[in-house]
């Protein structure tokens, strides 16, 4: 079982969800984050004081799934999230030791 963590632009979330849904994946968890990397920031000005902002709004999507599905899902995400411009984001893959479905107590792949 692995966790795929994708950090993407806020606007592409719906497309990713659609793509995953077609792929057969429905469970996921989303959170709002701020990211910083190569993408250049923005200037903000408040009463003449300038601030350069390099934390930009991103969305983090976490999907826990059977290891065998990982490559397919990664492709789905890349397809929906790639614009080719700096700032498209990253995908990280981690091993998950176990999962539990709270409602039933099911464990492992059955819990997803």
């Amino acid at each position, binding site marked *: 079982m692995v966790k795929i963590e994708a950090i993407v632009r806020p606007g592409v979330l*719906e497309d990713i969800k659609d793509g995953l849904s077609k792929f057969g994946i429905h469970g996921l968890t989303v959170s709002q984050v701020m990211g910083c990397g190569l993408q250049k920031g923005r*200037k*903000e000005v408040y009463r003449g004081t300038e601030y350069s902002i390099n934390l930009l709004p991103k969305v983090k999507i976490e999907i826990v799934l059977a290891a065998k599905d990982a490559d397919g899902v990664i492709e789905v995400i890349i397809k929906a999230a790639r614009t080719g411009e700096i700032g498209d984001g990253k995908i990280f893959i981690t091993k998950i030791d176990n999962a539990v479905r709270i409602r039933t107590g099911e464990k492992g792949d059955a819990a997803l």
Partner: protein
Amino acid sequence: MKKRMGVIALLALMMIFILPMFAWAAEEGIDTGDTAWMLVSSAIVMLMVPGLALFYGGMVRQKNVLNTMMMSFICLGVITIQWMLWGYTLSFGSDIGKLIGGMDFFALNGVGLEPAGTIPHQLFMVFQMMFAILTPALITGAIVERMRFPAYLLFLVLWATLVYDPICHWVWGGGWLAELGALDFAGGTVVHISSGVSALVAALVLGRRRGYGTERMVPHNIPYVVIGAAILWFGWFGFNGGSALASDGLAASVFVNTQIAAGAAVMSWVIVEWLRHGKPTVLGAASGAIAGLVAITPACGFVTPMGSLAIGLVAGALCYFAVSYAKVKLGYDDSLDVFGIHGVGGMWGALATGLFSVEAGAEGLFYGNVAQVGIQAISVVATIALAAIATFVILKVVGAITKLRADDEAEVLGLDVNEHSEKAYSV
């Protein structure tokens, strides 16, 4: 009430002869009660501008709220100066061919404290200034989330000068629509049809927002929308009531009609929506209020409370359908439904005035005077024609000078950061 507007027109002529600018003494003829009410009316119509900023600002996405509010707020700067310098005289200066005002009041020259009716002339001028400020701000609901700010500023000055000022003169400044006998108590044509139609044209010229129809585009803060609508409702008492230009029975009647139509339209919008979607929405209640207020605007000084009830009930349902059905069918992206509410509501109101009027000598259809509906229809068509054509031309001219639309990246990132280098909310 037409008489009162006549007074103003007469005054315009009189003003050609010199009246000292600071005639502090010449205050006979000024009624303190009427003046008090007009001072207050002017102030609360001014408050409608930030009310609108809140109403519109709550309805856009978070990344565009400041740009949206700025589009309204900046009118308080730009149009204050435009009106003072040349807008007032174009609208209320001595008539030229029933089409436009002359230059006699340029830079408020000759606009002093002498009585215009029972209030100081400058007070009449500033009351009308607030109308001139609010009207173009209404248009912005159609163009938010995608129009570049510099292009908007250019558009704003041109539209105020070439659309608002002439129509205002036609109807209230002694122009041809006034002569024809068109009834427009507080601005159904001048304010709402003109802005609603211009909004539609602007939405079409600008094109749809990126992602329109696929992305989720919902109000980022509905409490703002409710409070904005409520401030507008409040301000409308000054807008309509102040149009009586006095603190008398007429003003009271206007006040009552305004309240009833607004309340009725809240109910009809909410009920229709409930039937169609299974739930009454808060956004619907706020929208219904505005629809009713728009529709009663031209009629409020000419109809009975029962007439107002009818006008309001129809307005709520009609605008709901314009917004939720017609717009979708026709496929244009009028972001915040300026046409659906101000355009459609304004047209209904202008025609309804021709149906329900009980004004002596200008009764409506239901009181046996068929002609009035025709006159009202002419005023509607004339307003639509000028507003649509002039807005189109202005936008083409502005577009030739500077890009109208924000580029894709700016639209994705949000116009707040892109046009103003600011974020609405931080920690």
